[in-house]
């Protein structure tokens, strides 16, 4: 136990000595502080002492509480925590393992009565401490700003700590694997960013393909309904044509049959072209960490727990006019429902499975290597 505490204390001293740690911490404070600098008044809004009159953006239209929650979700989480702060944290922590296993440094640790696996895991969790401290600071500051300035005390905000740490850990485990394998900080940073971009692209493509697939299915379903209706009309027209044959009824029958052919032709085009592509990307995503979905999980949880629904609903509105590649409208509600049907267990479980496998390989390399 004293060994673990010593390693934790050492990790804190290490972080404390890194300038980047303090830079990110100060920036986190500034980002949260900047929320407080913006205020709503009955006649408009203010930034520091400057007042800006507005008919659409004032405390009579939006309550201060909802306003700050909205900023927290869209800027605090989407922009700061899950992008900029994470990138800075990766840059700061990428050198932890390459420095740790450098010749002359690792000898001192390995010659102590601590198993290599335990040493590895302790060091890994010490790296996560960096992000936990950063996010903790940001959440406390945001909690106070939303409470004091907005009058809404939302403890649900603190859910950001475990969720963002979890999100960071997906990238950090990969960073550790590369760092242990190559012993290079530069390689660890570059390959981790490449991996992150790759995962985000894959996720974005998978969601886009899912949208196209649903749009395709919806179009096919619509055409099926039209074919059924046309068949009914043809049957009726045939009956009329047989009982009361006229030139008009024959013409109408011919038109309906031509329409049916056209509809069947259209239906043939919607043969599930996106199903296979989507399935391929979906299967690839199963084994990879769900970075975007984990952050979205935070939205989801905050929306239900901290009642930030109003803040997030605006984002959904912007998706209402999405179209697929063939110009068919994407059924956004269905898409949202489909994405939200992915359970927390599935998102976190598969991501943690990836993390466990990656960490196992990194620990295996660390434990088997001669230094």
């Amino acid at each position, binding site marked *: 136990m004293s060994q673990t505490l010593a*390693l934790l204390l050492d990790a804190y*001293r290490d972080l404390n*000595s890194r300038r980047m740690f303090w830079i990110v911490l100060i920036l986190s404070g500034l980002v949260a502080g900047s929320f407080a600098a913006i205020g709503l008044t009955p006649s408009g809004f203010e930034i520091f002492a400057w007042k800006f009159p507005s008919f659409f953006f004032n405390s009579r239209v939006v309550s201060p509480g909802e306003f700050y929650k909205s900023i927290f979700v869209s800027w605090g989480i989407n922009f700061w925590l899950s992008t900029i702060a994470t990138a800075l944290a990766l840059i700061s922590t990428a050198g932890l393992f390459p420095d740790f296993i450098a010749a002359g440094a690792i*000898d001192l640790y*390995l010659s*102590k*009565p601590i198993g290599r696996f335990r040493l590895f895991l302790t060091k890994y969790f010490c790296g996560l401490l960096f992000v936990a401290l950063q996010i903790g600071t940001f959440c406390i500051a945001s909690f106070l700003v939303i409470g004091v300035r907005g009058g809404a005390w939302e403890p649900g905000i603190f859910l950001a700590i475990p969720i963002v740490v979890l999100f960071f850990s997906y990238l950090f485990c990969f960073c550790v694997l590369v760092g242990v394998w190559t012993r290079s900080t530069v390689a660890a940073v570059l390959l981790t960013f490449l991996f992150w971009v790759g995962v985000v692209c894959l996720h974005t493509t998978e969601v886009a393909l899912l949208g196209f697939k649903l749009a395709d299915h919806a179009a096919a379903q619509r055409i099926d309904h039209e074919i059924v209706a046309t068949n009914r009309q043809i049957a009726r027209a045939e009956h009329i044509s047989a009982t009361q044959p006229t030139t008009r009824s024959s013409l109408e029958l011919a038109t309906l049959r031509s329409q049916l052919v056209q509809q069947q032709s259209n239906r043939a085009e919607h043969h599930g072209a996106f199903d296979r592509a989507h399935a391929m990307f979906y299967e690839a995503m199963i084994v990879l960490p769900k970075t975007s979905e984990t952050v979205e999980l935070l939205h989801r949880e905050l929306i239900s727990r901290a009642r930030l629904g109003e803040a997030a609903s605006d984002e959904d509105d912007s998706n209402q006019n999405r179209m697929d590649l063939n110009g068919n409208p994407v059924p956004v509600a269905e898409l949202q429902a489909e994405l939200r049907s992915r359970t927390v267990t599935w998102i976190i479980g598969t991501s943690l499975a990836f993390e466990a496998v990656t960490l196992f390989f990194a620990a295996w390399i660390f434990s088997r290597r001669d230094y």
Partner: protein
Amino acid sequence: MPSATGDYAIDLHNVTKIYRRRVHALQGVAMQVNRGEIFGLLGPNGAGKSTLVKIMVTVVRPTSAAGTILDHPIGHKPTLASVGYLPENHRFPKYLTGRQVIEFFSALAGATRKSRRRRAEGLLDLVGMAERADTKISQYSKGMLQRIGLAQAMGADPRLIILDEPTDGVDPAGRRDIRDALLRLRQQGVTVFINSHLLSELETVCDRVAILVGGRVARQGSVDELTITRQFYLFELDSPPWSSMNAALPAAFDTAPVAGHVIRGKLPDQTWCEFDGIHLRVGHTDPAAAQPILDALRRAGIVVRRMQVIRPSLEDLFFEAVTDRAGGERVSPGAMPPPLPRESS
């Protein structure tokens, strides 16, 4: 001479390390270190010294190894709580102070908070770093780092201390301090294992030494044991002509020495002798046995300038061990090639 395993702090047998199936760094090393002694490990670059040390402290995994360290098998992690280690070219965390380094690594060795604080204070005094104890490591000189490194190795009150080049970069005063600290440790019953290039220093503090050459132990024993059989009489002569020398010691040497080379031969009583044109070396230390040689030299009209018993230094032993007897060449740095397969008869 200790015979039971329990008498040895380090008892190694057949320690082998092969890197990537090609480089044979250690080839069946056997080594015994008694409890409470200072033991020196010597060897040329690439002889496998650091690999052997790293195997003992579990930094490197052996290909095969048998034996014990402090009565436990090699690689037994809990035993390392009683082993202090100072690696060569160590890199302490730069954000720590000297005091924090000692306390941190003592904590990793399992020392309690109270004991490590108390010991750190005493050790800082011992290595002469009390005044700079709270300065960041990044501001230390190489010598200061070595002093703190030594204190760190002693931090958890170990029974065995393994030091890899402990005096590297340390000034003469610092070396004396380190030497005194090692002697004090021996008095306290601590076993000290030193891997060093500084032969003269090892000679002054080590009870026993081993010389590692090409991954094998070439010599092992106390400095006295190793040198007593290599003592000899040296006769310094006044550049005698070869005819006189041949007349004095007929049949000892086959040919005249070429300038800068040594010729070897044997006296009628089968004692070895060497002659390089000026110095005659005869392989015994008995004054009575030296008299007939002296008489023979005088009879041949050779002037003897000086005559004395020479005891080889550790350096002489070292060079003898690392020199190929047949070719007279010194072994090249690096690991030895793998042993050749035995021919089937």
